[in-house]
């Protein structure tokens, strides 16, 4: 994979893991493609359960989490991560954008809330801010 556009901050971007949790295939694949386009490894999950099963702590990265999902919702996943003591930063990306939701996800430990559809630069800035990397620069 060509990584020419990759700029390196205070870590090794190649070891970055961006977890994408969204039950909507099109949205998940779109985000994954965007992450790939800046030379970072995207790890897409169609459900919160499968993500939580495979989550490996210790690697640098962040989580892009959808809220509206069957069975285990984004809220459940946030609560679970908090419970597990995960240190991975979480960026919630949802079409549902209201004060209650924002406040709730903040309380549950999300670093950032982005409303769908989301601009690529805004997303990358959010990842960079959350992780300290400088993707897409």
């Amino acid at each position, binding site marked *: 994979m060509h990584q020419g556009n990759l700029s390196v901050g205070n870590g090794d971007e190649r070891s970055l893991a961006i977890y994408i949790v969204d039950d909507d295939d099109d949205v998940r694949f*779109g985000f994954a493609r965007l992450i790939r*386009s800046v030379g970072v490894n995207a790890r897409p999950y169609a459900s919160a359960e499968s993500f939580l099963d495979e989550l490996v702590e210790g690697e640098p990265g962040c989580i892009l989490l959808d809220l509206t999902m069957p069975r285990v919702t984004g809220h459940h996943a946030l609560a679970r991560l908090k419970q597990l003591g995960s240190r991975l930063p979480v960026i919630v990306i949802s079409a549902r954008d209201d004060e209650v939701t924002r406040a709730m996800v903040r309380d549950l430990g999300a670093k950032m809330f982005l409303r769908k559809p989301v601009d690529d630069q805004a997303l990358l800035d959010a990842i960079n801010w959350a992780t300290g990397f400088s993707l897409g620069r």
Partner: protein
Amino acid sequence: MNWIDIVWPMMGAASLTLALIHLLIWFKQGHQTAHLMFAVTGISVGALAIFELLMMTAPTAETYSVLLRWMHVPFALMMIGIVAFVRLHLQVGRLWLGLLVCLVRLVSLLPDFLTGENLNYLQITALRQVPIWGGGFVAAPIGVANPWMALGQASVVLLMVFLVDALVSGTRHTTGEYRRRVILICGSMIGFMLLSALWSLAVINGTLHAPLTVNPAFLGVLLAMSYELGGDILRAAQLARNLSASEALLRDTEQRMDMAVRGAGIGLWSRDLVHEESWVSETGLRLLGFGPNEKWDRARFYERLHPGDGEMLQSAIAAAMQGDGEFASEYRIVGVDGRTRWIMVRGQVEFDENRTPLRTRGIVSEITERRRAEERLRLVVEMSPTALMMVNEQGLITLVNRQAEIVFGYSRQELAGMGVDTLVPERYRGRHVGERGAYVASATTRSMGAGRELFARRKDGSEVPIEIALSPIHGDSGTSVLVSITDISERKRADRESALQRDELAHLSRVVLLAELSGSLAHELNQPLTAILSNAQAAVRFLAHSPPNLDEVRDSLTNIVENDKRAGEVIRRLRALLRKDPADHRRLDMNDVVLDVLRIIRSDLLNRNVEVVLDLEPNLKPIEGDRVQLQQVLLNLVMNGADAMADVSASRQITLHTHATDTGGVQVSVKDVGSGIAEEDIERIFSPFVTTKTSGIGLGLAVCVSIIQTHRGTIWATNNPSRGATLHFRIPALGDSSHPVAK
């Protein structure tokens, strides 16, 4: 003093009494001459008795002679009386013979007074005392006989001849009662006169020791005559009794007749056409508008007729005089009290042998009530809001009402006699002619064109939707059909309007529903937009790589196209739900409708943490329906189910189940695990404005009912055995018309 002195005065008195009685009868009744003749005879016989008595006791020959002379006068009168009685009372005997008897006897009075001492003797020389039976003597003359006595004897012989002739002619020409009377009278007269002759012979011979007398014989004649006349009187009395009895009977009959015609309110009338005289019974006068004291007046009668009715009545009578003589007519009378009454007259003209009308007679009766009833019936028909027509077997219109004029735009004059096929639009006309013939053949009361839409063609060529009911009416001139026509354009308009309102309400309810779903819908639209944006921006970045990663760019573009379509689909679905189109029924797969609904509501259910379980029977037969409206029903049911589970903390699950019904339709069940429905509400929840929720106006399920009904289906709710409720609806199979279409 001997028995002669008693018997002869008695005979005389009897004769005179009878004579007096009949004289009295004649006097009272005037024209009965027979009684006068009897009286004459009776007086004469009475006189004879007196003369004979005096002669039998005469002291000298001279006295005897004078008495005998004068005795011939009553004798002559007696004979004339007998002849006249026979002629006048019995009307037999030859007139000339009778007159001859009278003439000869009267002529014999001349020698009686002019020759000798009397008709019998020229001279009575002495009287001898003749002993008689029973003791005593009577005087008998001795003298020279008068030759003129033959004249007197001749008259007696002629009388005998007259009587015998009368007897013969009476028995020959007549029969029965009258013949018996002729034989009795004439026979007894002849008999008594012969007896008298025999008596005289016997006395003269000396065989009979009795006075020489004629009186007992003539008294017998008198009694015979009296019996005859008395019989007449008896017969008259009998007749009078019979007459009065039959008069009473007649009066009785008249009274009964009168009572009957009065009771029936029938007036009787007759008119003598020759003498121009009219008679009208009391009831008749009252019916014809005459006051209690008014007399019949023909001119006034015609004055009181309603204008125009007089001519009609007279032409009816004139026609009867030309025809069979019978006539009947109905006319109006304006009475003195100002009331108009309908009168029916029936009558008959009587003709003589030359067919000259002599008399008309008949009855009148009042028919105002009947006319009123007829008028009311006519008005009922006329003012009926349904158009009515009578059509005869030939298909010609014979009667129409006002509404028929309005519906068809023709006047009644134009409709009368018109072929009913003219009122059928041309494209149906051929078919109608055939069906009309078939109907008449098996006429029953039914509606026409079952299941078809019928149209009438108006005079201006426009068409109106109608409903028709047919009733056969069997009459003398074949089977007519009473056709009731209802103009249903107004109803059709109202149907359309209510369908419109229904659609509008359904739409309104959809809008409310979509407002509730707005968050979810935004999400549904955001997903593809998010994918598009990410893919597009990723593609830009891949193009900037050197070399550009065209594989990724191609995949991006493919995804963009797909998600654009997906977004378009969401918008299309949304627009469909928001559109206010009239219902559009097409063939549908119910499972598709269920999946459509899930796409719309998916994110909402996710937000509410509701899991959807699908249990769809594959390969369902298509049903016919409006996609949007059925989606609306399902949306409502699913959202209601989700609402019902708001307080459920465990897994919230909605099961959507479809299956084919026994009759080939489709049933959809939406099952939740919520709070269930209170039993008393299980029917009520489908009524408008009934809601068990805190939000919403409670129209959702009522609209669902209305939609399912227009799909000829049913909708109902049940509580689940475990928990929650299930709402079901069924849509019948294509072409199943066992459920009526709700309009």
